[in-house]
């Protein structure tokens, strides 16, 4: 009791916070946390939420051109899930005290990021396969790891999201497998999508550990549970065999299998391309943002009408 009375509150609170992390306890919205922890988790969740929502665009491009009613229904359900993921994450992020309006504003002002992968276009139907299989596949590896993140609402959102993601990856892989059993043109189309999406998918895990200055603190706070390179390697080892099963080639001439570690080593990643897309020079950066701003503005009257309706109901009661 004595030291609670004599030490400054923040000291005790900090020790308490660190002890809870040590015991693998979750931090909840109203618990005391260091300001830098709050900011880091908030930034990461906001970025994650924006990624889910912006990620609907490349796929939305194919809803009206899906090759069958079955394919169309599946794609619609998948895209609707992504919208849902965005909303789970926005609501989890809001528990840290930032309003959703502000998050969207930050996105529009390009002060908040989203995953760079969505700045690549979905050119053919095979791209829908490659996105589900590779992009969702990479996201799953990351999200499975984040189920153990230290911030409670984030961890819970990840559990829910992971349950839904496995269908996303399977539907994508099914598209690729179907095309690889098709005509030579369809096979070539699948391989072309593979060639364009493979490297950007690997970049989704972020820079190498040595070039990722914030990783250490994030791991200490258990926001991040595994490093970029470790997660990337997990994805590589899982996915390459899946590619071989359906007859796809990996577009990497330096690819080697290490018998001892039972693990693949890849050629160098083109980080210049990565940073250039992050900085806004990807094929679709402008288009993605213009589209989001346009529909956000066009939906404003709906939000205003709902609010007016709610006010009127209060007045009437």
């Amino acid at each position, binding site marked *: 009791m004595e030291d609670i009375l004599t030490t400054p509150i923040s000291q005790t*609170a900090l020790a*308490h916070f660190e002890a*809870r992390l040590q015991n693998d306890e979750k*931090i*909840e919205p*109203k*618990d*005391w946390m260091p300001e830098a922890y709050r900011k880091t988790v908030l930034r990461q969740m906001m970025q994650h939420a924006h990624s889910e929502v912006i990620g609907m665009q490349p796929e939305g491009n194919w809803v009206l051109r899906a090759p069958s009613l079955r394919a169309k229904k599946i794609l619609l*359900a998948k895209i*609707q*899930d992504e919208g*849902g993921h965005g*909303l*789970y994450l926005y*609501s*989890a992020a*809001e528990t840290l005290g930032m*309003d*959703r*309006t502000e998050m969207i504003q930050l996105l529009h002002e390009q002060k908040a990021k989203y995953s760079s992968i969505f700045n690549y276009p979905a050119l053919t139907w095979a791209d829908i396969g490659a996105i589900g299989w590779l992009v969702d596949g990479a996201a799953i590896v990351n999200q499975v790891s984040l189920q153990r993140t230290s911030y409670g609402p984030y961890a*819970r*959102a990840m559990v*829910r999201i992971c349950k*839904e993601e496995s269908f996303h990856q399977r539907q994508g892989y099914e598209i690729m497998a179907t095309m690889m059993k098709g005509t030579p043109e369809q096979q070539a189309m699948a391989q072309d999508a593979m060639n364009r999406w493979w490297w950007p998918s690997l970049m989704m895990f972020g820079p190498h550990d040595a070039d990722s200055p914030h990783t250490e603190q994030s791991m200490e706070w258990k926001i991040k549970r595994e490093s970029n390179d470790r997660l990337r390697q997990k994805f590589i080892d899982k996915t390459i065999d899946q590619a071989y099963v359906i007859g796809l080639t990996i577009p990497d001439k330096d690819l080697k299998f290490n018998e001892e570690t039972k693990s693949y080593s890849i050629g160098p990643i083109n980080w210049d391309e990565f940073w250039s897309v992050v900085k806004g020079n990807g094929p679709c950066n402008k288009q993605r943002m213009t589209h989001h701003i346009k529909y956000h503005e066009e939906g*404003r009257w709906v*939000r*205003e009408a*709902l*609010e007016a*309706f*709610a006010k009127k*109901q209060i007045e009437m009661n």
Partner: protein
Amino acid sequence: MNVDTQLELWEVFIQKNNGLPFKHEGSVHASDKETALQHARDIYTRRGEGRTIWVVPAKYIASTTADDEAMFFDTTDDKAYRHPTFYVMPEGAKQI
């Protein structure tokens, strides 16, 4: 009206099956309870995860925090007599 609105915040509780307790699942933004229920259904029950939903305006929820834990709950720590294992039963007594 210049300030954009995201409407009121509602916390969502879902009962998975008849007879089970309601569990907190997340939150939605909505202007009124009907739309809050519809949004909660669309966002949290796309795969039959529930059969009943509660929505509650977040502003009406009061909560304790981890920092209150000791002050709030410690008083029950020394009341072992509230548990059945506290009592010594005579040898041979059955079904008690």
